[in-house]
């Protein structure tokens, strides 16, 4: 018996330590290098030389089957070998990139990065400014609003790959049952339609997830609201509870509290079932939504249609963005020229961008696909023969061009989930929740040393 306490204490100690290993990752001081001052543009000689020198690049990405595009690149530049590594998606991916950057070892040359996280990496000067490498000349190749997403204080920090302009996907059969012939053009009409759909069919006109800040942000984006700003240095602007934000949230709160919009968490089993079973009559979603639905709700093929989002005022034509990503070069890369060429080529050369659009179904950021009749002319049988790509290509042109992010969107989103998201799920007061969100963001920003505008 005498031994037991000691053994138990050791056990306790061991247990303590496992809880600590978690936090054992490095936080060594800042990174070296960094894009910073604009260097003189590189000569063509230097680029040719770099592309003809045997080089191995590492590319961290979660995009499925991206090997296809990389293969095209390698066929074009046989001296460059690219190692594609998938280190996880979302939070996990960024954690690993940050850890590798901080430790100064094992970081890749090229990384996949979503638009809203670019500034969290320029903040730490981890991304290479691609302008001196020739990225300045690419501006005309991409949709203007996307280009603004990768541009910061004159520097270009990533090459856009895909986007998610928001539209309205809806079930034509359910709408018809409710006596709605054309998709609602304004949010007032949308609310009226929601009531009809509920009364006639029992379905919800759509679902506003309680766990998806990115979708809600996209809807704010559409309304021309700029809740965030960042000057690229140490000043951030946070207006997450402005009257404009509250107006949009109050609209949704009304629909939620009347029981016309459900609030299931998205990308959960429950939510997938909701599409398959007709619980949701529609989805305000991004351009990647149509293909996604095709995989999720196979049984509803042919019953869907795509339209632009409802508008806040009649005659308006605006949209926001939800999702999409880009490829950036880390400042620590030893082969910046080759790395840049990889990031550029796969997202710029038509053979590669077309493949992204047609095989991985990424909604393109590059005009050479967006404006190609072969792409926009495609008819989707899932959408009853509608030219869905064309619809979303048009919507892409209406996305508000100047939306900015905070350099700590992972925290901003997590704080959203604990405040506004929670209130959505609880059918609660979204206005008070947005105040709480604002308070959290401001105190976090101040604690992290930012000046809050």
């Amino acid at each position: 018996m005498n031994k037991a306490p000691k053994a138990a204490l050791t056990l306790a100690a061991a247990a303590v330590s496992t809880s600590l290993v978690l936090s054992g990752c490095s936080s060594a001081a800042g990174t070296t290098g960094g894009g910073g001052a604009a260097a003189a543009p590189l000569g063509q000689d230097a680029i040719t030389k770099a592309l003809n020198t045997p080089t191995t690049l590492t590319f961290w990405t979660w995009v499925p089957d991206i090997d296809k595009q990389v293969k095209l690149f390698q066929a074009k530049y046989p001296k460059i070998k690219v190692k594609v590594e998938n280190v996880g998606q979302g939070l996990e991916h960024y954690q690993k990139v940050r850890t590798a950057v901080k430790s100064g070892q094992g970081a890749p040359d090229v990384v996949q990065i979503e638009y809203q996280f670019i500034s969290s990496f320029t903040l730490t000067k981890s991304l290479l400014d691609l302008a001196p490498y020739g990225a300045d000349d690419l501006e005309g190749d991409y949709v203007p609003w996307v280009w603004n997403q990768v541009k910061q204080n004159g520097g270009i920090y990533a090459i856009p790959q895909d986007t998610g302009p928001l539209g309205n996907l809806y079930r034509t059969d359910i709408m018809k049952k409710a006596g709605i012939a054309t998709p609602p053009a304004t949010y007032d009409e949308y609310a009226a339609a929601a009531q009809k759909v509920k009364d006639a069919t029992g379905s919800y006109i759509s679902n506003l997830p309680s766990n998806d800040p990115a979708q809600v942000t996209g809807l704010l984006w559409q309304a021309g609201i700029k809740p965030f700003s960042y000057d690229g240095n140490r000043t951030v602007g946070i207006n997450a509870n402005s009257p404009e934000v509250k107006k949009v949230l109050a609209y949704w709160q009304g629909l939620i509290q009347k029981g016309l919009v459900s609030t299931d968490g998205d990308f959960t089993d429950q939510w997938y079932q909701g599409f398959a079973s007709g619980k949701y009559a529609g989805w305000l979603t991004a351009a990647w939504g149509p293909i996604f639905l095709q995989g999720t709700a196979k049984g509803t093929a042919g019953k869907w249609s795509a339209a632009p989002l409802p508008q806040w005022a009649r005659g308006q034509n605006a949209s926001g963005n939800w999702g999409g990503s880009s490829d950036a070069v880390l400042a620590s890369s030893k082969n910046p020229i080759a790395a840049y060429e990889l990031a550029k080529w796969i997202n710029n050369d038509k053979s590669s961008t077309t493949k992204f659009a047609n095989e991985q179904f990424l909604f393109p950021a590059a005009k050479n696909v967006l404006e190609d009749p072969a792409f926009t002319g495609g008819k989707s049988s899932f959408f009853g023969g509608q030219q869905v790509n064309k619809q979303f290509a048009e919507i892409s042109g209406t996305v508000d061009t100047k939306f900015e992010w905070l350099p700590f969107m992972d925290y901003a989103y997590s704080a959203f989930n604990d405040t506004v998201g929670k209130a959505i799920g609880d059918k609660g007061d979204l206005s008070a929740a947005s105040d709480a969100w604002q308070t959290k963001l401001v105190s976090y920003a101040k604690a992290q040393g930012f000046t809050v505008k």
Partner: protein
Amino acid sequence: MGTVPSTVARRGRRSTGLSTMKKRQNAAAYLFILPFFVVFISMLLVPLWYSAYLSLFQSQLIGGETFAGLANYVRAFTDLAFVAGLGRMLVFFVIQVPIMLGFALFLALALDSGRARGAKSLRLLYFVPYAVPGVVATLMWGYLYGPDFGPVAQLFRAVGLQAPDFLGEGSILGSMMNIVTWEYVGYNMVILYAALRAIPPELYEAAEIDGAGPTRIAWSIKLPAIRPALLLTVIFSVIGTFQLFNEPSLLDAIAPSAIDDSYTPNYYAYNLAFVNQDVNYAAAIAFALGLVIAVVSYIVQLTTQRRERTNREGSR
């Protein structure tokens, strides 16, 4: 149990001192434990020290790192999110652990009584949930709890009743208790059962001769004999409870409104490190949690020991 080999070793040492043979044996022994120590030190002790070191600093996204002394710890114990998480785990411990251990004890006694038919396969069956990885178990239960298509909800709806909301803010802790109980009853049962099997059968014979029935034997012989094993399971449960992580982190996806980022202390530390990018404060939270676990474990031990002592004095 381990007394025989140690006396032999002692006698050997006394008679000859350290012979070369002995030395060689010792060297071999060290060689054998070396791989363990290399991994133990590099994967456990070094990261542990490094975390302790990190927890003494404060870092900002702008402004970098500064030495902060114990400021992070002061912040931790005055941080409502952390304290609330601890409180939640205390509630969890007080309710769930007695239920789970009661169940485990009951099953162990039942199996040990030899009255159950097919005891061997039953023993395996009870243990199976423990073999299911916690992540898988939580996903499975998440499905069972589902408000629309979960089998329980469907059953309730089929008979015209309102389906219970397993994933609501008020019920999610109970749902988690259920998952953890399901998972660990078998595990604790095996520990208790093994202890029961180690009781010398002569005691039972003697008790029977004295006219004790099965209940009396269970109460007066079996229970006191397996008290160390029971204590062990309690300590394990203290540790397991306060470190709850899988369940909240996975259920967060399907019950986002009920679980926030500081629902349990461990989940909080994880989110601090990887979402808030505040590794230093996360390290401090982890150490503070460790401290709390050590204190609670110690209290549990003290109380059982004191009870034992008073029992012994009482019987004298």
